[in-house]
Structures are given as structure tokens and as C-alpha cells.
């Protein structure tokens, strides 16, 4: 193909001849060579043109030969990759491998890149413990200078760790140390468990885990000198051994707190110390105490206060004396708070979680608590807050990096039941409406026998203050055939909540609703209609208005509290019904939680106590819509499963009182992190009791409405599923009344208390 542009230069070539190119056309070759029409070419220019063509990676060989008035460019093209495929890969899927390699379909084939790809695939298999894997790239010629690239893979067997041994460990047995490591010794389930495969990088992690294990038990001089691995001849077994020098175990000696800041008394801070002398030294306890002291300084509004732990060793007694020094930290200010990644949430919704503004003194504890508050919003799958040096030595820039997650859900549905007829339900709920942090939910569902609709909106920063306003309205009518009575209630609710202390909030609310119960004709039990007198009386009262004002005081130290590893929650609420309307009662509820993380924050112990009491006033007697049933308060029992019950018509009547205690422990199951599965144990005790006056069942014998405690114990599996944190509870009722309805298995959402 001859290409003859008219070069007007005095001594330049008047013709450029390009030979050997089948697919790449001349304009592209000239583009790479950087030769433009009418451009003089020196020797350097020729060299650049040559380099340009080589760098393009399109050509196997490139020659540039000036022949008198002509410039000849002779090229031999690399073939183009048509398709890439992998043979023999079982453990790694084609997509995984495609992600690793550089060569791509429709691009130029280059042998060096193919070799590098083979090495990369080999490396991927080695990372999964298959040292013996081999990868060879193969070429299959196609028409018109195109080739197919195939990677032939022989994965080979997994090299597992036959034996994990330790040298120099006196204080702890080999078996105890093996539990500490991430790598496991190949046992019965060798094919299943992946962590018994030998991976070199994991040895470094194991050395660190061993060091932390010893440090947490007072062995301050611990050294893991070596981690050696010998590979058996057939390359499928490895013997790993760790050499340890333990040194002595040190215990806590004297503990003192001293203040080097004038006007700051050390005693108040010293009281927070968790360090008990005589106990083996542990860095976690020291860090905990520092956190508590610095949180107290934050709460008292002190600036630039830092706690320095000064340790003095006395080897004779094997103890470490600890002195917590309150020192004046250096004067560092927050230059800017930069918020990135908020593609949906507005900047101010995140910025208002910070209690310090730009230009304020920098306090690491405050920034950490703000990070917790940002995560507690629930809008982000990940929120990282860290400080980096600012434009001056005494300035710091706080970087907030968030990753949004969808917070809205839209549900459509149409249902057709033989008796209930056609039903349509539309629901839209969004906890971060238009990124303003407002929560909005609208739900309408209609059917021939039941319609329910509700709307609620919450503005967390009403009038720009830390003042949350929520408004709600609902309209529900149920008249199913199999239910024992029809209900209709419609109402609205308004609530304001604001902080009344560093970790406490107060909510004031008013609710007005009309509740109707009607159409109770009893139940057909074995041919005869059995009627429960209580329900019949209540159903006769038809519609009643409830107008109630109420408040809830809540105290929650889990975020703003002093110590990071434990938390206490206490909520007390009262509702006074009787501001007009028919219902007259005072309903009181108390909820308390104590939570603690132990065994360096792997296991969480939790004790929850909830109780409620409705005391009717002035001759008013409660109805089934107001009484407590203990639903989802105690596990191991069905909804309406406990409490006073008419055994003849099998209707639960609920009670004016309920009290429940739940003791839980959550712990890891040792499965890899990414599964998000952990285990739990629980013991639930509680009861629902108390109805006004004597209550009779359908056959006119009295119903026991006394306090009979129920208890259930069980195991649960917690799974952090994509649709939310789920909890599968397997329970056994230890103590129950014979008429109660227990439920050995149920699935609940583990909501935040």
C-alpha cells in the first residue's frame, strides 16, 4: 500500500512506503510514528517514530529504512486475540481468572503479557494454598491474523498443614496456642476447612496473634523469634513450627494518677481506673482506662487533655507500676472537616453529627464518638473518620469517608384470597428521604376484608436544632372471617424529642385515636358456640376515643458513655390517657439494658429487663387493644402465647402487667469473617398477668390471672444478611402453664435495643 503525501520540505522524503500491515491501516501507523504531513525528519525524528511504533505494542518487528527520496516502514503485526478461555480451573471461576489477567479479547496478543498472566494465575492459586498448580498459555491460530489464547491449568492438590508445633512455650500448651492462630492444623474436616491450607503470608499474621495473646496475659517481653515451614517432598504437606521466648509474666503493681495541668484534680480521674494491682498486666485494660479518663475530660469540656501511661518495671517483684499522667496535649486545631462519598446524603446531615466545629481544638475522643454517631444513622455501609495533618503544624484536617447504601424500599403487591377477594398493597419507606436524613414511610394495603394505611414522617433536626419531630397517622380496619372480632382504629400521633443531657434524651408526645371492637360472637368449638364473657363485654363497648399525652426519658451510654467496651440503657415512659376521650388510664413502661464486651471484645454479654403496667382510672377497664400480650418480648412462645387465657375458646386475654428478663451472650463461631455468622445463647424469663376483678371463661369457671413466671432457654444463630441482621432462635420452654403455646423455632430481626 503506497501512501504519497506531498512533503513540501526541502530535504524531507517525498514518499512514505508502509509494508507488511494487514489490519492496522496507514493513518494509524503514521499516528503512532508521529509523522505529520510536511514535517522535516532528522535522525532523532526517525528514532522517535521507531519508538512510537514499538510502544504501540501492535507490531512484532518494526523497521524504518530511509531509501533515497522514500521512507520505508516495514512492520510485522502481532496477531489479535479473538477469545480467551481457561481449561482445568475448578477452584477459581473463569470470571475470577479474567479479572487477574491483562490480556483481553479484541486487543493485541503479546507473548510477554501472556507469560505475566500465567504467572499471575499461578500466584492466585499459591495464595489459596495450591503450591503445586501449573499454568501454561497456549495459542490457537485463527484466520486473518487472529489467535485464540487458552490457559491450561493443572490445579494440583491443596498443601495442608500436617502439624503445627511450638518450641519454648512453658506457660501454655501447644493445644491452647493452636486455638489462638488463624492457621489451623489439618484435622478430620480437612477438605472442608480452608484455613488449614498453607499460605505464607498468614504466618506473619499468626506471629502477631501469638504476640498479642501473650501480651494480653502479662508477658511483656514475649518474642516470637521464628516461624519456619518445611514442605514435604510431594509438596502436599507442610510442617510449621513457631519458636517462642516467653519471658516473665508481669502483674500490675501500684496504680497512681497525677495531674500536670493546673486546676485539674487527679483524684476524680483516678477513680475511673479499671486497673487492679496483682492482676496480670494487660494492655487492653490500660487502654480502657485511658479511654474512660479522656472521655471524662471531654465531658467536662476540657481542651487539649491527654492521658500518658507511664510504666516503671521492677523485675525483682515481677510487677509493673502504672502512673496515669494527665498532661497538656499540644495545641492542635481542626482546620477543616471534609466529607466525601456522600452521593445521596446531604453534607450537613453528616456534619451536624460532629459536636466540634471547624477551628475548634482537636479532640480525638470527640471525633471517634462522632464517627459512632454517623454510623448509627444507618445510611452508610461504611463510615471512616480519620484525621490527617493540615496546612500548618498545629492544624489537622478531619476526613470523613462514607459509602452510601440504599435506604429506601418500595413494595408493590396484589393478593387474591378466595374469601378475602382482591387485595392491593403499596408501601414506600425511606429512612433518608432525599438525603436530608428525614424518615418517611407511606403504606396502603386494601382487601375486601381488611384495609390498613399509615403515613409517618420524622425530621431529626427540626428548626435546625437537635430536636426531632415526628408525625404519624394510621387508619386500619380488620374484619377477617377467622378472627374472633373485628377492629377499626384510626388515629394520629405527634412527638418531639430533644437531648436533656450528654447521653440522655426526653420525648414528649400526644396521641389521639378511635378504637372500635365489634362483631364478637364467640367461637364454634366442637359444634357449640362458646362465648368468652370478657371479650363479649369489651366488644359491646364498640368505638372508644383515646386521647393520651406521654413522655419517655431515655439514658443511653453506648455511644457517648465513658467506657468503650460496655454500655447501659435505661428508658422510662408514661402515657396518661384521659385528656378527653373515653379511655382513662396511666400506662407505665420501663426498659433497661446492661451490655458488656469481654475476652478482648469478641464476646458480648447482655442483660435486658422490661416491664409494663396499665392502671385504669375512675372505673375504666382496659380492653384487649390496650393490654399487654408479651409479643416479641419473650422467646420460645408464640404471639399471644402466654398470659391469662380462656381455655375453652382458646382466646388470650392479655394482662394489665408484664415483666420480662432476657439474658443473652453473643460469640463468634470461628467461621471466616465474610460469612457474617455468629452464635448466641439466651435465657428468657417473664410473665403477663393481672386483669381487673374476677374473670370467667366460656363455661363460667374462673380464669387464673395471677403472676405465673414462664421461662425458656435456647441457642440462636445470628446472620448479618443483606436484608438486615437476622436471628434464628431455637428455644425450649422450661417452665410454662399447660395452656401456653410454645414455639421451638422463630426467626426475628435483631433490632437495636
Amino acid at each position, binding site marked *: 500500500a503506497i501512501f504519497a503525501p506531498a512533503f513540501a520540505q526541502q530535504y524531507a522524503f517525498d514518499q512514505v512506503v508502509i509494508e507488511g500491515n494487514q489490519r492496522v*491501516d496507514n493513518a*494509524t501507523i503514521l499516528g503512532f510514528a508521529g509523522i505529520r504531513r510536511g514535517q522535516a525528519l532528522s535522525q532523532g525524528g526517525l528514532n522517535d517514530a521507531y519508538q512510537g511504533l514499538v510502544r504501540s505494542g501492535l507490531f512484532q518487528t518494526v523497521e524504518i529504512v530511509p531509501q533515497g527520496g522514500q521512507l520505508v516502514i516495514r512492520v510485522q503485526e502481532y496477531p489479535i486475540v479473538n477469545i480467551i478461555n481457561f481449561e482445568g480451573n475448578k477452584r477459581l471461576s473463569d470470571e475470577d481468572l479474567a479479572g487477574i489477567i491483562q490480556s483481553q479479547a*479484541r486487543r493485541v496478543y503479546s507473548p510477554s503479557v501472556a507469560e505475566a498472566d500465567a504467572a499471575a494465575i499461578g500466584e492466585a492459586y499459591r495464595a489459596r494454598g495450591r503450591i503445586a498448580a501449573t499454568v501454561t498459555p497456549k495459542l490457537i491460530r485463527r484466520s486473518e491474523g487472529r489467535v485464540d489464547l487458552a490457559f491450561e491449568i493443572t490445579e494440583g492438590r491443596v498443601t495442608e498443614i500436617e502439624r503445627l508445633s511450638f518450641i519454648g512455650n512453658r506457660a501454655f500448651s501447644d493445644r491452647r496456642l493452636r486455638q489462638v492462630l488463624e492457621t489451623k492444623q489439618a484435622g478430620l474436616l480437612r477438605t472442608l476447612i480452608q484455613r488449614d491450607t498453607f499460605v505464607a503470608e498468614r504466618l506473619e499474621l499468626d506471629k502477631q496473634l501469638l504476640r498479642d495473646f501473650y501480651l494480653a496475659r502479662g508477658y511483656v517481653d514475649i518474642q516470637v523469634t521464628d516461624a519456619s515451614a518445611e514442605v514435604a517432598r510431594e509438596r502436599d504437606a507442610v510442617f510449621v513450627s513457631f519458636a517462642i521466648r516467653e519471658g516473665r509474666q508481669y502483674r500490675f503493681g501500684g496504680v497512681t494518677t497525677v495531674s500536670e495541668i493546673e486546676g485539674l484534680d487527679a483524684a476524680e480521674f483516678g477513680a475511673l481506673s479499671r486497673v487492679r494491682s496483682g492482676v496480670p498486666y494487660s494492655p487492653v485494660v490500660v487502654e480502657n482506662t485511658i479511654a474512660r479518663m479522656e472521655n471524662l475530660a471531654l465531658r467536662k469540656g476540657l481542651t487539649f487533655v491527654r492521658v500518658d501511661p507511664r510504666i516503671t518495671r521492677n523485675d525483682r517483684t515481677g510487677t509493673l507500676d502504672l502512673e496515669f499522667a494527665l498532661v497538656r496535649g499540644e495545641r492542635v486545631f481542626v482546620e477543616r472537616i471534609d466529607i466525601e462519598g456522600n*452521593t445521596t446524603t446531604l*453534607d*450537613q446531615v453528616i456534619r451536624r453529627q460532629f459536636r466540634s466545629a*471547624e*477551628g*475548634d481544638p482537636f479532640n480525638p475522643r470527640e471525633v471517634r464518638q462522632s464517627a459512632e454517631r454517623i454510623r448509627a444513622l444507618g445510611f452508610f455501609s461504611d463510615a471512616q473518620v480519620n484525621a490527617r495533618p493540615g496546612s500548618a503544624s498545629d492544624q489537622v484536617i478531619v476526613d470523613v469517608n462514607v459509602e452510601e447504601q440504599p435506604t429506601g424500599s418500595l413494595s408493590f403487591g396484589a393478593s387474591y384470597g378466595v374469601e378475602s377477594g382482591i387485595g392491593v398493597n403499596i408501601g414506600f419507606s425511606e429512612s433518608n428521604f432525599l438525603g*436530608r436524613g428525614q424518615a418517611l414511610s407511606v403504606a396502603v394495603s386494601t382487601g375486601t376484608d381488611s384495609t390498613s394505611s399509615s403515613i409517618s414522617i420524622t425530621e431529626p433536626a427540626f428548626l435546625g436544632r437537635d430536636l426531632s419531630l415526628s408525625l404519624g397517622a394510621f387508619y386500619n380496619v380488620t374484619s377477617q372471617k377467622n378472627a374472633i372480632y373485628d377492629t377499626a382504629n384510626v388515629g394520629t400521633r405527634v412527638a418531639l424529642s430533644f437531648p436533656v443531657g450528654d447521653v440522655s434524651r426526653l420525648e414528649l408526645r400526644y396521641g389521639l385515636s378511635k378504637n372500635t371492637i365489634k362483631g364478637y360472637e364467640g367461637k364454634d368449638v366442637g359444634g357449640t358456640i362458646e362465648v368468652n364473657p370478657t371479650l363479649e363485654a369489651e366488644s359491646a363497648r364498640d368505638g372508644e376515643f383515646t386521647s393520651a399525652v406521654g413522655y419517655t426519658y431515655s439514658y443511653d451510654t453506648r455511644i457517648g458513655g465513658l467506657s468503650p467496651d460496655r454500655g447501659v440503657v435505661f428508658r422510662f415512659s408514661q402515657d396518661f390517657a384521659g385528656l378527653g376521650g373515653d379511655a382513662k388510664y396511666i400506662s407505665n413502661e420501663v426498659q433497661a439494658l446492661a451490655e458488656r464486651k469481654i475476652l478482648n471484645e469478641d464476646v458480648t454479654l447482655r442483660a435486658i429487663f422490661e416491664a409494663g403496667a396499665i392502671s385504669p382510672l375512675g372505673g375504666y377497664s382496659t380492653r384487649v387493644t390496650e393490654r399487654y400480650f408479651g409479643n416479641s418480648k419473650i422467646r420460645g412462645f408464640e404471639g399471644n402465647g402466654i398470659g391469662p387465657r380462656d381455655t375453652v375458646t382458646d382466646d388470650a386475654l392479655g394482662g394489665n402487667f408484664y415483666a420480662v428478663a432476657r439474658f443473652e451472650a453473643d460469640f463468634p463461631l470461628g467461621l471466616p469473617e465474610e460469612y457474617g455468622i455468629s452464635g448466641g445463647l439466651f435465657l428468657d424469663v417473664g410473665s403477663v398477668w393481672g386483669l381487673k376483678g374476677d374473670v370467667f371463661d366460656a363455661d363460667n369457671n374462673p380464669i387464673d390471672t395471677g403472676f405465673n413466671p414462664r421461662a425458656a432457654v435456647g441457642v440462636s444463630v445470628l446472620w448479618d444478611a443483606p436484608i438486615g441482621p437476622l436471628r434464628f432462635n431455637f428455644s425450649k420452654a422450661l417452665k410454662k402453664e399447660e395452656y401456653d403455646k410454645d414455639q421451638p423455632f422463630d426467626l426475628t430481626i435483631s433490632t437495636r435495643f
Partner: protein
Amino acid sequence: CGARTQERSLDSYTAEEIYKQGELELETGRKPEDAIRYFQEVERLYPYSEWAKRSLIMQAFSQHKAKEYEEARSTAQRFLDTYPGDDDAPYASYLMALSYYDQIDEVGRDQGLTFQALQAMRGVIEQYPDSDYARSAMLKFELAFDHLAGKEMEIGRYYLKRRNYAAAINRFRTVVQDFQTTTHTAEALHRLVEAYLGLGLNAEAQTAAAILGYNYQSSPFYDDSFRLLKGRGLAPEAQGDSWLSQVYRQMIRGEWL
């Protein structure tokens, strides 16, 4: 299964026919996706040919039209890698900058894309100064830069509303010093007057108002500053109105100032 059969039939067409089909699809078809597929076929069947080059740039254009911004960017980048010296290169790099620009979001949200748009636009202006895309890149550069100033103002107003005057002053000074050419400078100067007055630094407030008056005589913000300094009330539309309409404006319309 439709795509499978169509693929085989395309092998028999020449590059030009498939390219023309793609162009036709782009003008007439509702969704640009079909056009993209044709252009991809040209590139697969006749790689590195003249038609492959033209279809690569057309592919980037149709992906941009289909609002598939990431794909449009990677296709445009691939064009620039394979045909650096081509006379369509300015258009490809302008298309890349445009894909960032079209994704810029409200001032309240992350402005990472605005930064990338600015850099990409500057790349177009510096690399291809005399191409006709440089002029529209300059225009888009100004708008993106103005948008960045808007972000600083948004944060400044946040602190001003909470009466953290020092934090607000720093943000507004950044706008006055680093974003002088933008449309926000007038408002920044007025906010500085408000903040300095709030702190009681009347001399600084006078200076800020003087600069505002000198450079932005006709801006409504100068009128607000003037009234503030003279102690007269704000102009009606600048003033807050009744409590209830303020709640409506802040909570429903999202104008939180």
C-alpha cells in the same frame, strides 16, 4: 438467543455496513444501546481498521448519550490510547471531561466528580488549545469551578446559621480569595459582613462591605449589607417570614437557611 443469531449474520457484512447500521440506529432508535452493540461489533470483527477507529469514538458518544458515563469514559480513554494523534482525539478527551461534568450533583453532595471534571476540562484546554472543543471546555470549566465555590458557600452558611462565626468566616474567606472569578464572591462578602458584625468586629465588616460595594455595586447582596450596616431592617424578600412558612420552607422544600 436473539443476539446470538444476529452476531453470526454480522460477520458477513463489511465494516462500513455495520458502522452505517450503527449510525442509523443512533439517529432513529429510541435507545442508544442498540447502536453501541453495532459499533462494538465493528471493532471486534475489524479491529484497528479505519472503521474500527470511527466506531470507537461513536461508541463513546452513544454510551454518553445513554448516560452510561463510566463506560463512555473507558471507551474514550481506549480511543485516546490507541489513536493518540488522531484528529478525533480532542473530541474524545472532551467527551471524557463531559461525562464527569454531567454527573456533578447538588452542592450539598460529594463534589469528587466536580474535581475530576475540572481536571479533565483543563486537560482538554491545555492539550488541544486551538480545537473548537477548547472553547466549550473553558465554559464548562468555569461552571464547574463556580459549583465548587457553591460547595464552600454551603458549608459556610451551615456554620453561619449555627452562629459559629469563626468557622463561617474561614469558609467565606476561602471563597473570596480562591474563587474570586465565580458568581459566589458577592454573597461571600455579604456573609463576611454578617459574620464580622455578629462578632462585633465592625471595622472588618466595613472593609468587607466596601469591597462588595466597589466590585458588585448592583448585586442584591450589597443592598443587604448596606441595610445591615445602616441598622435598617433587611429587604422583604431577604427577610425570614412567618414561623410556619419558615418550617414549610425548611422541612418540606429543603431550603434550610
